[in-house]
C-alpha cells in the first residue's frame, strides 16, 4: 500500500471522528475546537490533492477567521457551560434515523455509479497560486468583483444587526 493511502486513511479518520465529536460534545467550546481539528484535516486533504493555495486559504479563512468568530461569540454570550436542558429522546432518535437513511441511500446510489477517474497527470499543478490567480483574474473577474460587493453587504448587515436599538 503506498504512503498516500495511509495518509488518506489517517486524515479521513481524524476528520470523521472529530466531526462526530463536534455534535456529541455538550460543551460548545469543545465543539469549536473539534471543528478546528476537522478543518485542519480537510486542509491536509487539500495538500494531498496538490491544491496548495486552497490549503493556505482553508487554514487562514476557516480556522483562523471563521472559527475565531465563533469562539468570540461563545465568549460574549458566556455559553461555555452546558445550558441545553434535557429534551425528549424521540426527536433525537428521529434525527439519527433520518440522517442514517440519507447516508445509506446516497451510498447505495453511488455504488452503481461508474466513475473510474485517474488523476489527470498532464497538469497536476493546477492548484498552485500562479495558475489559480490567472484563471481567477481572467475568466472569473466579474464574480470576483461581485463577491467584494457581497462582503460589503455582509459587513453593513452585521454592523446594523448588532447595533443596540435606541428607543
Amino acid at each position, binding site marked *: 500500500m503506498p504512503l*498516500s493511502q495511509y495518509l488518506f486513511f489517517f486524515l479521513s479518520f481524524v476528520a*470523521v471522528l472529530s466531526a462526530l465529536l463536534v455534535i456529541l460534545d455538550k460543551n*460548545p467550546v469543545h465543539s469549536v475546537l473539534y471543528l478546528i481539528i476537522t478543518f485542519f484535516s480537510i486542509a491536509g486533504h487539500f495538500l494531498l490533492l496538490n491544491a496548495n493555495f486552497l490549503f493556505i486559504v482553508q487554514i487562514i479563512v476557516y480556522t483562523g477567521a471563521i472559527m475565531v468568530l465563533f469562539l468570540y461569540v461563545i465568549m460574549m454570550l458566556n455559553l461555555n457551560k452546558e445550558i*441545553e436542558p434535557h429534551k425528549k429522546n424521540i426527536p433525537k432518535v428521529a434525527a439519527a434515523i433520518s440522517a442514517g437513511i440519507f*447516508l445509506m441511500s446516497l451510498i447505495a446510489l453511488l455504488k452503481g455509479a461508474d466513475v473510474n477517474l485517474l488523476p489527470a497527470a498532464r497538469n*497536476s499543478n*493546477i*492548484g498552485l497560486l500562479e495558475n489559480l490567480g490567472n484563471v481567477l483574474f481572467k475568466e472569473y473577474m466579474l464574480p470576483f468583483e461581485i463577491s467584494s460587493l457581497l462582503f460589503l453587504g455582509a459587513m453593513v448587515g452585521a454592523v446594523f444587526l448588532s447595533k443596540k436599538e435606541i428607543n
Partner: protein
Amino acid sequence: MKEVLIGIPIQWYIYLSVTLFCIGIFGVLFRRNAIIMFMCIELMLNAVNLLMVAFSRYLGDTGGQVFVFFVMVVAAAEVAVGLAILMMIYRNTKSTDIDTLNRLKW
C-alpha cells in the same frame, strides 16, 4: 508531489465527502443549540468543497478550485451575518435554544 495521488481512487473522496455531509445533516437535526447548528452547516460546506477540489484535481480543471474559493467567500459572509442575528436572538430571548423560537408554529 506529482505522483502522490497514485493509488487513491476518486470513489474514496466521494464516500468521505458524503459521510461528512451526512454528519453535518445529523448535527443540524440532532442539536438544538443554534451555534452548533451553524457549525454543522460549515461542516457541510467543507464536505462539498473537498469533493469539488477532488474532482478538479482528477479532471485537471481549474474551475472547481475557483468555485471552492467563492464558496469560502460566501461562507464567511454568511457566518458574519448569521452570528449577528444570533446575538440579536440571544439579546431578546436570553438563550440560543431554537425551541424557544416557536411563534411561527401553529
